[in-house]
């Protein structure tokens, strides 16, 4: 399935190598990302080696500026790694151009952000539906109803983001992220803007998604309580994984 996104011969070799054995959904090797700020190169990832199996719930923790968000952006195909290797569902992002990564993201990845990132002009319903529209498979009412029911937002669907609480907005954002049944859910500080009660609610929902639907989740957080709901905690410092 993953091979449809592969772009180069090198990438095809890697696909062949994994035949016959259970491959991780995420695998990075010596992953580096350097940002150019003015005339200065700023390394954000300095050789990350990191593996996530399908169905795992992994929390990535570390202090601010350690490269957690950059790692998430690279894993989500939002930015291209500078060097190294990153395989997501068998696809080597190093070999893929922007359009190929966008297509991959559309079909395989869901994002949840700290600031919810809902489209302010659309209602909760349309914020969710637009993900299905962009994916191109059209509106699936059965899937929509079950996701809305599970996340407890059925009575909030006709409200615009400004009329929803932070917790409700984040639940809508989760609904939007999972509506297209992505292989991988990437959550960037999903409880960062929420109070304790709503944080627990959101974490419970992520946990339920992982438990009930074997949804693979990689969650970035610097909150140890939030990280504790994950199966595994990966610690980062200075652009490297220091413990796994």
């Amino acid at each position, binding site marked *: 399935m993953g091979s449809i996104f592969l772009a180069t011969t090198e990438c095809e070799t890697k696909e062949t190598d994994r035949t016959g054995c259970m491959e991780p959904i995420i695998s990075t090797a010596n992953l580096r990302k350097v940002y150019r700020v003015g005339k200065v190169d700023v390394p954000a990832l300095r050789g990350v080696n990191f593996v996530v199996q399908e169905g795992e719930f992994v929390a990535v923790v570390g202090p601010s500026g350690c490269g957690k968000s950059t790692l998430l952006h690279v894993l989500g195909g939002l930015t291209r790694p500078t060097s190294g290797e990153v395989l997501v569902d068998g696809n080597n992002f190093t070999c893929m151009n922007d359009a190929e990564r966008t297509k991959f993201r559309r079909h395989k990845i869901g994002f949840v952000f700290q600031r919810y*990132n809902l489209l302010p002009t659309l209602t909760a319903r349309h914020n969710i539906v637009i993900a299905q529209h962009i994916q191109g498979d059209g509106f699936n009412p059965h899937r929509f109803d079950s996701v809305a029911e599970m996340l407890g937002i059925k009575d909030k669907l006709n409200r615009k983001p400004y009329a929803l609480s932070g917790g409700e907005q984040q639940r809508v954002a989760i609904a939007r992220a999972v509506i297209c049944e992505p292989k991988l859910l990437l959550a960037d500080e999903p409880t960062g803007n929420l109070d304790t009660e709503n944080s627990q609610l959101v974490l419970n929902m992520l946990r339920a998604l992982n438990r009930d639907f074997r949804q693979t989740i990689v969650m970035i957080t610097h909150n140890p309580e939030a990280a504790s709901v994950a199966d595994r905690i990966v610690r980062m410092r200075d652009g490297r994984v220091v413990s796994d």
Partner: protein
Amino acid sequence: MVYRMIFENILHRPIRTLVSVLAVAIEVGMVMLVVGMTHGMLHETAKRVEGVGADIMVQPPQASLFFGLTQAPMPIKIGDRLAEIPHVLSVAPVLFLFNAHGGINLIYGIDPASFNRVSGGFAFLKGGPLVNPYDILVDNWYARSNNVKVGQTLSLLNHNFHVTGIVEHGKGARLFIPLSTAQDLSGAHDKASIFFVKCTDPGYTHAVMHSIRELLPQHQVLSIREYMSLMTSNNLPALTAFITAMISVAVGIGFLVIFLSMYTTITERTREIGILKSLGAGKRYIMGVILREAGLLSIIGILAGYAGTWLVKRAIVATFPTLTVELTLHWALWAGLLAIGGSLLGAFYPAIRAARLDPVDSLAYE
């Protein structure tokens, strides 16, 4: 779904939407009104000349189709020689005077007897014919536009004229004075600017024109049908240039406003574009959203432009009854196409810019 998002975006920024729609409406209105007024005035002028009832018109060499623009009168005796040509029923000499006081008007200096023979006579709505040297006839459009009544005095050409009658419009000019008075005022004694020639039968027009050309080889001899066909903007290079310039200005306004509007939109919505990209929206999708939004603004603007043009036309005609605004479906469609084309062109660069935004930077945009 995309259209819902676009529709909500349009509603979300009402002032921006209003300015964009207004710019496109002005663009459409300018195109339709400039073309409508120039074509309308040309056609109306031509129809009035046709309404004189002549079959042929004879002008001096190098004379303009726009009567009154050239002052090169011919000896009035030419009229007698024209009248002797076989199949000529009557010849009406007319001297043009151009009045710029209190509005621009072409005045026909006419010999009432010959002019009536060619035209079949005026239809008097009020008053009666020219009798005294400083009598004047006005047509009903001029009378309504300037609130002129029979018996009042009109100050034209630095002289006071007595309004003796109001006639039905459509006999060449809107103002008529005696030929001898026109000759005195212009110092063109025994001269005429044009001869309107009526044949005994329209079928003799070409034969009579041939005879006139033999008699007056240097003069301009046109059948009224030829004159009508020449009175289009295509045959008037200066007018075509004017229309082209005005249309360019109008399209330029629409282009720039939509460009600025969509450029501002991209900056305002950088984060939203980042969100769409995180959901997997590709460059084509983003460009499609921006271009469709510009297109929708453009369509609303076009419809507003059509409605506005119709209202302005009514206002123009009510305020200036002598003006003719000819709105045609052909130019309405052209104005719409130009507006859509200009808008899409204006939105193209912002759309490309939006499509090229880096998703990570966009999501971090405050």
